[in-house]
């Protein structure tokens, strides 16, 4: 459940799948960017980080309707949302799906 506890798993997945083109962007809901800066330096987190210090009232959390963490969005090569996860535990399966082939996952049927 805890974001910090999931950092080792994220690091592992990042190094495993980066060669297949997978990128990670961290958006921290911390109230101070400096905390995030220190933390990522300590833990050796190398993917880009965004933190505007506004926690869940920041523009990006609002855009993605994020009120609690962790909250993960998997985006496919076409730029479409492929999954939303409450934990990194099921992330590898989703990454496998979006990297499995160049074929894009079928768009969900929408008729409105």
């Amino acid at each position, binding site marked *: *459940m805890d*974001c910090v506890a999931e950092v080792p798993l994220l690091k592992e997945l990042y190094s495993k799948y980066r060669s297949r083109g997978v*990128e*990670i*962007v*961290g958006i921290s809901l911390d109230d101070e960017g400096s905390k995030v800066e220190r933390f990522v330096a300590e833990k050796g987190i190398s993917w880009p980080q965004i933190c505007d210090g506004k926690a869940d009232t920041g523009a990006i959390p609002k855009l993605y309707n994020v009120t609690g963490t962790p909250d993960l969005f998997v985006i496919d090569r076409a*730029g*479409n*949302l492929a999954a939303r996860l409450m934990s990194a535990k099921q992330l590898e399966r989703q990454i496998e799906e979006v990297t499995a082939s160049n074929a894009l*996952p079928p768009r969900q049927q929408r008729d409105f």
Partner: protein
Amino acid sequence: MSTSNATEGWILAARRRAIGSRARTEAPGIVKRRLGVCLIALLAPAALVVAQQTPVVNHVADVLRQARQEVSDFQKAGGKNTDPGHPAEKWAQELWKLRDASPGTADAAKATTEAVRLLVYADRFAEVQTRVDRILPEDPAWQGLARVLLDSASRQKSYTYFFAKLQAILSDAKDATTRAAVQTALGRAFRGQGEEKKAEAAFRAAIDLAAHLSPGKEAASQLYELLHLSVGQPAPTFSATMISGAKLSLADYSSKPLVLVFWGTY
């Protein structure tokens, strides 16, 4: 049902409540100022009622705290949902006594909702139905029950009772907040089943009924997710400054799979 699943259920329920309580008017510009005055007018008498009933509220909260503790101890000791004498049964009865002690009040509604929630997370679905079938459409407990019954349907993997019950409440209940709560729960269920048109209609109905109240705000948040954050839709784009000081735009990642990790060092 295994202990870990049951515990997970509690955690999920707690998380959903936490998320619900933090739900804000996510959908752009929904009626914040317009109804501000109206809201104050509505809340003033409600606050008075709450103040008068504080001792009973505390009582419900106390009973609930004991109940959760006992269920948690029961699970830690290896108790299963299939075991007879699950503590949820006893505590649901205790809460029901509080319901009967102050019928129609906010305390009774809270006691009712929590009693049913205890039974749902102990997989006592038959008892859930027996008790819920005795609750009249005008009972304020429906404002919380609608959502608990959705959890129940989801655990039971059967939505037949849920839809029949909530449609019946919707056709009989007159209270706008109750109707909004029912519409919001129906919308969530439709969304879960991929019935997006029906989900959208239900969320819009809830917003029309109670935009400034909790079920309306939840519906607005759900509607936003349905329209903008459903699987298969284009990820909302943004650009921002990274902590390194450099600019980042989502467009920079075109043709690469990307994971956005919302997190915190806390």
